[in-house]
């Protein structure tokens, strides 16, 4: 009875018979809640860290991807231009070849003329020998 009246007055006794103004059960639950809350905050903090790391990583990856992409585009362009360069070089070489061919043709004509001269001279020598 006495306890009830105390509790009505907002006073309670705990197991150690100390006077409390809060209900020991409630106090305990509150403490538990507090503990749990701390745990929760810790976990959330951890989670945030993990997610932050992840984002960073993904960002880095994105940057790297972007770099690689640029590189690839550059390489592709270079490839294209090399093809063009080669074409130009080829054209130049063709021009040089054409030039050499013309020179060859000139030499060929000269050679033919010289062959003709040789034949004429041989014929002349033969005739000369016959006459003797």
């Amino acid at each position, binding site marked *: 009875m006495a306890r009830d009246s105390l509790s009505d007055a907002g006073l309670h006794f705990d197991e150690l018979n100390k006077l409390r103004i809060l209900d020991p059960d409630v106090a305990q639950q509150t403490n538990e809640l507090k503990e749990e809350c701390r745990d929760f905050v810790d976990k959330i903090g951890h989670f945030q860290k993990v997610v932050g790391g992840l984002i960073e990583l993904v960002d880095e990856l994105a940057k790297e991807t972007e770099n690689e992409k640029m590189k690839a585009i550059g390489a592709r362009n270079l490839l294209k231009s090399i093809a063009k360069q080669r074409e*130009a070089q080829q*054209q*130049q070489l063709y*021009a*040089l070849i054409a*030039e050499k061919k*013309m020179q060859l*043709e*000139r*030499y060929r*004509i*000269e050679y*033919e*003329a*010289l062959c*003709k*001269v040789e034949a*004429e*001279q041989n014929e*002349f020598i033969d005739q000369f020998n016959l*006459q003797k």
Partner: protein
Amino acid sequence: MHLKTSILKEAKHKEFVSCVGWTSADELYSCSDDHQILKWNLLTNETTVVVKLSDDTYPIDLHWFPKNVGNRKQAQAEMFVLTSSDGKFHLISKLGRLEKSVEAHSGAVLAGRWNYDGTALVTVGEDGHVKIWSKSGMLRSTLAQNGSPVYSVAWGPDSEKVLYPLGKQLIIKPLQPSSKVLQWKAHDGIILSVDWNSVNDLILSAGEDCIYKIWDRNGRNLYNSASHEYPITSVSWAPDGELFAVGSFHTLRLCDKTGWSYALEKPNTGSIFSIAWSVDGTQIAGACGNGHVIFAHIVEQHWEWKNFEVTLTKRRAMQVRNVINDAVDLLEFRERVIKASLNYGHLVVCTSLQCYVFSTKNWNTPLIFNLKEGTVSLILQCERHFLLVDGGSFWLYSYEGRLISSPKVPGIRTDILNEQSVSLSNDTIAIKDKADEKSIYLFDALSGKALGDGKPLTHEKEILEIALDQGGPSNERKIAFFDKNQDLYICPVRNFGREQKSIQIGASVHALAWNDTFNMLCGLQEYRVLIWYYPNVVYVDKDLLPKTILEKEGSEFSKSPQIVSFVGNRVTIRRSDGSLIHTNVSPYPAILHGYISSSKWDDAVRLCSSVKEQTMWSCLAAMAIGSKELTTAQAAYAAIGNLDKVQYINSIKDLPSKESRLANIQLLSGSVQEAVLLQAGLIYQAIQLNIDSYNWDRALELAVKHKTHVDTVLAYRQKYLDNFNKKETNKRFLQYAEGVKVDWEKINAKIEMELLKERERASAGSTGATMRNSISTNP
């Protein structure tokens, strides 16, 4: 021939280079859109900034003031004209000081050129105007006004005409306002560059149709190149007119004056906007679109003579190869080789300071002497000496290096002489001046004095090419030349006292050369080679001329071939596509010439009878008559079936005196030479000579003058008229016939007496003279 190009790793200009110009053989100025004018010293490989122009001046064209103005010579050019995009041209000194800026055109001034004597400047601009300025930059006249830009301009060789392109057209406009303008469509695209050479008088043009073309001064097309990949941005003639350079995108080409290409280079230059030849013509510089200046040396020039091949391997080194034993000699020089010539067993090499003379027998010890001026533009060789055209003078040296003479031609421009306008033989020098193309100056080689009365040999048409014969005695020296109509003439040059008469021996000839030892002449026609075995024949017996010509025809000779050499029995020809063609002529005429020059007539006859060729006999006949060798002539004429001449020679042989024989031989050659007879006092014979050639007036004149044989002349005249049933109409004969009675008996007796007298006179020398058997006494 090749181009050895050099280009720096880093461009010296920050923007594209627009123009280049040489001051000497080793110094170049270049201008660029970065407003800088750079000086390139090729000896030290240094590049210095001469001046930085203001930021709104974009240079377009540069041209140095000509070096030799009048007779005053300067070692280097002192001033240049620079045209710019703001419509001005600037006169700038060598040190970079801006002497004067002149507002010239609205829009950019696209080109500016000094004339050859530095008295005038022509500029062309985007506004289509062509303007002539004085040396100090005062406007003289506006030569033309057109609706579209004029991209390039060039002076004619005589500085009297200006060539400029207008769109696809080329226009030659004389400075004289009333003279005729020549204009023709030259290209299928806009023409970007033109050049006109003063030595060979040829015009180069090139443009956006990617083709370069060569024209003569009348606008006749001589060569069209194949199409290039890119528009041709620049063309430029070498100073001596033997070569030209062509610039395009990544392309530099070296071509022969006939158009075919010696070498092609594909340097990394961008478009070459301007090409300039160094003063000595050994290298070129190009203004490149990527800020570079490209330099290119001409190497691997080639000379051949008999069994020797000489190649310029480097700027200062030559390689000599003896083809027979493959022996190779290397020749080194202290300075750059400017000109060289190999002929008659000697190699003559001129550098900028010295002249080296090598003998083909000994390549190790050349003879070296210092040059007077060191700007040799032409070397000509003959058997005994060689001629250098150095600066403004001619120097004749022996192969021992002794200065023989230095002929002087007043007022001649020596820098435009070439092998076609100067000719040398052992005793004579012939020079054709561009200023008066109808005359040839002749000099004695040994004394350097003008021949005869000092007057030049003149011809009625412009002469294009001259050549002196090389063999034979000096008093029979002849010159062969062809004129504007391509008619070939020969003319004796040492015919003192007598009138010099040139005789035509061929037509449509466009190149000629004498044999190096004997007087055989080679001429080229289209697709044809002609050899005159004995051109002198026209002075002896003109009828024989066609029989002494060898004609070789063939498509292999191409349309307009050029003669390279006629050495021994070998003619070397360069076709229009640049290939060399060798062709042999029979060795017999040369042997015959050899016999004749040493008077071995029997051997000559034996040679001809073993060869059995009409040509040979004809040559022999002419040679024998020329040397008054009657027996040989008789045999030769008999062999070619000219019986009338055999008979006449027979009659000449019977003549009692030397003088009559001489006169009659001359008559056979087609010229009446009574002077010989008159000199010897053989009046009757002279009269008879004129009667024989039906030269009645002269016969009568002689008879009257010497008061003898008037009746003889009248008698023959009467007989002649009777034969044709005609009456005397000649007043003089009628007049003299009145007082003289014709009595044949008396006349015959008189003739007999004259002949007897002549025989007596000649009895000391002549043996067994018989009765005269002249054609005229038995008509």
